[in-house]
């Protein structure tokens, strides 16, 4: 849709939200329907597909044996990458990752990593020599807003199902698995979009386009936050931040039940 039409829609969305009304009749803190499935790829060591309304994301995990970092000889690691496929939206172009996908990848990565739900020491195969590196790669299939939460749920859902490949020396035995990865916690990211002076959760595409600021909060459990990221060229008052923190912890309890 062209720029000008977005600007016109924005006015309508802002005034509706002031009256507490969303285009699809959801409450300000309601999520769209979330569907999680796992039959994405048989070659993946763990995978998931998440539909958040019409936003559609797939995630796959591949474990690769590699050398540990010299300063952490007994720890493996994970790496999260999100690709905004050109097939998912007229806004996305093919080519090397741009700043939007880099930010998204890094924020999803931090949400999982900082929750300490994966014990990196358990990814160690042989201290100082061989560790597992878990690549969590996400692909956006359809973009209808709120990729942050959709990707975060997909990454965690895929990791939860992930299994370590069986090893013969330093080589992977194809198609055979040794054990499952254990997540000690289920990190949940909730993202708030500020549209005009209103704040909504799980923005769809039009709401996201109308918004000028975003705040993602990851919660590792019912009482603890583990990561945050503000984006967009708008701002939040300290009171709004505090309110979002409260809501994030509350909402994460609800979303955690889905995983």
């Amino acid at each position: 849709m062209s720029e000008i039409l977005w600007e016109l829609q924005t006015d309508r969305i802002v005034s509706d939200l002031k009256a507490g009304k969303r285009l699809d009749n959801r409450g300000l803190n309601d999520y769209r329907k979330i569907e999680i499935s796992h039959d994405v790829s048989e070659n993946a060591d763990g995978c998931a597909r998440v539909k958040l309304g019409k936003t559609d994301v797939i995630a796959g995990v591949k474990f690769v044996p590699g050398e540990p970092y010299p300063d952490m000889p007994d720890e493996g690691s994970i790496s999260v990458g999100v690709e905004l496929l050109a097939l998912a939206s007229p806004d996305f172009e093919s080519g090397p990752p741009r700043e939007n996908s880099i930010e998204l990848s890094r924020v999803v990565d931090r949400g999982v990593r900082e929750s300490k739900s994966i014990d990196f020491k358990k990814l160690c195969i042989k201290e100082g020599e061989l560790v597992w590196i878990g690549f969590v790669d996400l692909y956006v299939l359809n973009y209808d807003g709120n990729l942050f939460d959709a990707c975060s749920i997909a990454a965690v859902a895929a990791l939860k199902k992930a299994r370590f490949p069986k090893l013969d020396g330093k080589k992977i035995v194809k198609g055979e698995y040794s054990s499952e990865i254990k997540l000690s916690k289920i990190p949940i990211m909730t993202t708030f979009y500020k549209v005009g002076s209103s704040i909504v959760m799980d923005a769809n595409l039009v709401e996201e386009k109308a918004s000028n600021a975003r705040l993602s909060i990851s919660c590792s459990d019912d009482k603890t936050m583990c990561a945050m990221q503000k984006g967009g060229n708008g701002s939040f008052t300290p009171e709004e931040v505090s309110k979002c923190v409260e809501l994030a912890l509350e909402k994460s309890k609800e979303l955690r039940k889905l995983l």
Partner: protein
Amino acid sequence: MKEEENVYVNKHGKRIDNRGIDEIREIKITIGVIPEASGSAYLEWGQNKIYAAVYGPNEFVPKHSSDPLRAQVKFNYRMASFSVPDRKNPKPGRREIEISKVLGEALERTIFLERFPGTQIEVETHIVDSNAGSRVAALTAASVALADAGIPMRSLISACGVGKAGGHLIVDLNKHEEDAPDAVDIPLAVMANSNEVVLLQMDGLISKEEFNEVMQKGLTACQQVYEKQKAVLKEKFLDAEKEVPSKEDLSEEKNDLNGNSKPEAPEAMDSMQGGDLL
């Protein structure tokens, strides 16, 4: 890790570098260090050393990506290869790209972008030495450089890191504290005259109560940073007033918190029509 190293705040309330829990490291700012730039600043914040330069507003390149309604900020946060303990690959990494994005967005909130349609304002920051908190230092320096360039802003942006180490909520973490096993790092930036949060990131485990408490510390710290920025700008521009009469240099900064004032043909527009754009 050695045991004695894990005391982050001793019984006298002092940290490893002898600061109190609410104390920020020493900040020194110099304005106008890069003569070629429209505005510039050099900032030392503890061990962090940063050059910031502003170019523009100039015609946006590539032209087809320009915004016909407003200016766009192109922010660059870069680290010198020797600015960290291990040599950094000089090619900008994903971390630098992400930081550049969020810092640029923070500045866009404060600049009156709609006064310079179709233009770009380039903000370049280069870290030459670092010790935790380089992104907030870069943003603080960039804000001063923008003021030096005469770019009209709703407020200066003042930034500071806050967080947690060894169970203590502290302000302006250094590298040692940032590496604590329970470290929480929260880079924070506000529009100094309204306390609107324009930059907020976090990593590490923290409860709601602790977060709210440390945010208050952060807001106070940002005001301290603001005082330093203001002092150095006043020093420069009050002197300039003596040399060049009838400049209303800093008046923009105090104006219109709400951002709804009518622009009275800012000087930069005039100069653009005469030169830069044509």
